[in-house]
Structures are given as structure tokens and as C-alpha cells.
């Protein structure tokens, strides 16, 4: 069953029929397995990787280191929840090391992102400090290299 997850992780456009053929299973079994994964929350969604730099859309992203005071009984979870509910926040991780939360956010302009950090993030109760790092260029994301596909230059030798 891991096989199905691996395939979908790499290419969410594969149909149950494709996957069934590749794994040597029946289409019905694959559909059932995917339904199961979705219900259990193993599969949480299907998205597309977009290189926004190649479009007209204004786009900027940043990684923000956040230090917080953990709350009694609830640790970091309550603060995390307050932060991830902002739609600007695309990813949020609890980290080991020099800071506590790693926030990945997206916005239209640097100004917009800076405003979000100053007005919203920094003012969340228990947040001690923030450090904002703007992403200048994405080379690779989710295992995909951000470059135009190369033409097939393989020679026909054998």
C-alpha cells in the first residue's frame, strides 16, 4: 500500500487506473485504498507546484524564525494554532535548535510580508521574538527542481 502513497506523492495526477496498472492491483482495490487514506487523513490534499516567478503575479515568500514562551499544560500547540490560522501562513513547523517555530509565509510584496510580521505575528501573545528571512530564489521545492524541462537529448544507439 505504501506504493500507492509513494506514486501519488510524486504525481497526484495519476488515476486509480494508472496506479493499478503500475502496481499490478485492481482498480477497485486502489480506489478503496485511496479512499481509506483520505478518510484517515493520511492523504491530506492534492496540490500543484507553481513557479510563480514565471508568471505575471507578484509573489514573495519568507521564512520566519519565531521564539515563544511555551504555555503551561499546552506547550507550543496553542500558540501554533493562533499562527497557522492566518491564511498568509503556508507552512508551520515546531523546530529543535535555536528557535521554536518556523513559519513559511507568502505574500504579494515584501512590504506586505513585513507588515504581517510586525502587526500580526509579533503581537501574538507569548511570541518573544521573530527573525524574517526573505526567499530570493527557489531552486528546488518538494523534490522538484525549478528549471525548465530539458529536451530529451539521448542518442539512439541501441
Amino acid at each position: 500500500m505504501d506504493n500507492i502513497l509513494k506514486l501519488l506523492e510524486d504525481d497526484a495526477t495519476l488515476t486509480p487506473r494508472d496506479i493499478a496498472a503500475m502496481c499490478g492491483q485492481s482498480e477497485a482495490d486502489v480506489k478503496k485504498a485511496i479512499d481509506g487514506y483520505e478518510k484517515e487523513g493520511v492523504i491530506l490534499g492534492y496540490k500543484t507546484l507553481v513557479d510563480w516567478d514565471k508568471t505575471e503575479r507578484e509573489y514573495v515568500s519568507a521564512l520566519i524564525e519565531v521564539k515563544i514562551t511555551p504555555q503551561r499544560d499546552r506547550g507550543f500547540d496553542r500558540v501554533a494554532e493562533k499562527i497557522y490560522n492566518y491564511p498568509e501562513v503556508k507552512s508551520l513547523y515546531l523546530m529543535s535548535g535555536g528557535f521554536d517555530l518556523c513559519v513559511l509565509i507568502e505574500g504579494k510584496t515584501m512590504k506586505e510580508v513585513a507588515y504581517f510580521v510586525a502587526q500580526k505575528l509579533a503581537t501574538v501573545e507569548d511570541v518573544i521574538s521573530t527573525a524574517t528571512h526573505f526567499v530570493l530564489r527557489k531552486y528546488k521545492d518538494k523534490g522538484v527542481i525549478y528549471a525548465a524541462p530539458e529536451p530529451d537529448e539521448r542518442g539512439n544507439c541501441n
Partner: protein
Amino acid sequence: MDYSRVLSRTVTGLKKSGIRKFFDLLGDMKDVVSLTVGQPDFVTPWHIREAGIESLEKGKTYYTSNAGLPALRTEICRYMARRFGLAYEPDETVVTVGGSEAIDLCIRALVEPGDEVIVPVPSFVCYEPIARMTGGVPVLLQTRAEDGFKLRPDDLKKALTPRTKLLVLPYPNNPTGAILTREELAEIADVLRDTDVMVLSDEIYAEMTYGRAHVSLASLPDMKERTVVVNGFSKAYAMTGWRLGWAVGPKPVIEQMLKIHQYAIMCAPTTSQMAAVEALSNGDADIAAMVAEYDRRRRYIHSGLTAIGLDAMLPEGAFYIYPRVGDFGLSGDAFCERLLYDYKCAIVPGSAFGAGGEDFARISYAYSVKHIAEALTRIEAFVKTLKK
């Protein structure tokens, strides 16, 4: 100058490779979806490329010893032991420019004018012409679809004569995807056991087997003494452009092969050899990942072709599938040409791989699933216009 008077008649008498002929048709045609290439679509894993780059940075731009870097020959022995249970010493190895050179060396070191070389067909295109260039007599042994294109021991037995010098054993097979299991090899070994026939076991696709591990003829009782095993880095490690392979075999044979190699080639490219040490030491996981991917594509394309109505054996090795395309009143050649001209999809006619392939075509699945899917759509559109 009248070149026909100066050129070697042995060479001018060789047929142009059937694969080449088809690729000449393909030429510069635009928008063709091709499933023709016989090489991985993966790039050489980064750690292996890095080892090559590092060797250049450090200025390792010299020749190595003729037989290859000692470290590489040692790694080859370790690899043969680890993967196929075969014990070789470094002086029973020679590092070559691709598996192709190893095949050439082996045939040249063994075959004299008039010696018969048994070549099961369909198979890769080089054995017959190389045998001819040494004055050998190729004996083509037809394998059949109903046997899964496996060499039948009784056919082999019938083909043996007092002049038989060498049997070429091309498994896992290009173009059919057939393999030989240990049991099947044991039957072939029984035929060979009390003869002086040598074997050139071309195991370049040894890592590309699905569901069961490759077995080398040399690992069967009494077979090591008569077998030269050819392998290489091209397919297993996606290193085609590095041009690196090897042969292992009985020392007296390897020594003579080495002599030819020394005069013709000197040594295999040093940068490639440096990268290859890294490949053999730390590349097993890369192979596993690539083979898992080929396995998915193999099932995918087999199921797609079957749905279209083209009969093909589920390949057990290499990365080709070999469907029967001759059931529509068209020869394999005509099928492939019309598919190319009318539907812009390229596959290789089976006739390119020797007699008996006229009703078949070779399709490579060393391509992305999206690419394969598009090709299948085109093949289906074409087949729908034909009647069985």
C-alpha cells in the same frame, strides 16, 4: 579513388545496423513521441557525477594501467560476489570502454576463421558483425514467442557442431525482455558441460530484472571455467555516456583480451573509472530506486498495450517490451513506418534485431509515465484503424 577497391571486403560486407536504418527514417521529424532509445532516462546519480568531477578537479587526467584502476577492479570483484555470488580475483577482470568493447574483446580473443558462434536471436545487433570480422561463422538460433523468447536447450544441442567455439548468451534480453531462470540455465549448462564451447554471457541488464534476481550462468557448477561475463555501468547506474564496462572470466582468456585492449584502447577513460569506483561502492540504493521505477512503467505499458489489443509478454528483464504487431496484415516494418508517419510515434521494428522479428516491435519504457501515456494514445489511435 575507387574506394571499393581499397576498403576491406569483410567490413563493406557487413549490413548496416537495422536500428540505424530506422533512425535514419526518423531523421529530423518534428513532434514525434519516441519510445526508441535503449538507455535510461535517469541522470547518473549525483554522488557518482561528483566523484568524476572531483577527480578532474584534483587533476587525475592520466592513463590508468591497461586493465583499469586497481581500486575499480577490486570493487568489480566485490560487486560480482555481492550481487551474483561469483568469486573473481582482480586479475580476472578487465575494465573496458562500455560493455560493447568487452564483447568485442571476448569474441576476438576466442574466435578464429571458420569457428562457429551461436547467437540466439532476436538480440542486440553487435554479436553477428563482430563474429564476422574475426572470420567466424555466426549461427543464428531463433527463439520463439511461445517459449517467451528463451533459448531452448534442445535447440542449442542441435546447433552444436565440432566447429562451435562460442555461445553468446544475451539475457536479460534486448529487445524481448526475456530472462533465464536458474533452472533454465541449469538445462543449458547440462548441454555445455562436456564440450569445449565457451560462453559470452552478456549481462549488461543484470540489475534490471523484476520479481527475481538475475542469475549468472557462471555461478552454475562447471560453468565458470567456460564463461566470460560482460557487464557495465551504462544501464544499472544510468552512465551510458561515461562509456564504461567490464569483463570477468578465466584468467587465460582475460589475459588475451587484455592484450587486444592494450593495443586498441590502452585504457578506459580515467574520469569514468574514478566515478565508477563510487558507483560500485555506494550505488546499490540508486539501482534499487531506478529498478522500482522501471518496474512500475513495465506494468503500466504492458497493461496499456494489452488494452489496445497488442499481445506482448510481460517483460521480466531489461527495459523493453516486445509486442506482436504483425496481426493486422502489415509487416512489423510497415506498422512502425505508418505509426511514425501518420501518428508521429516512433518504436523500433523487430526486424532490426535479427531474423524472426518481422512481426514484432521493440518499445522502450525508459521514459516518463506521461510520455508513455501519450505514445499509447497514438498507438491506440493507429491500431483502431487496422483490422485483425
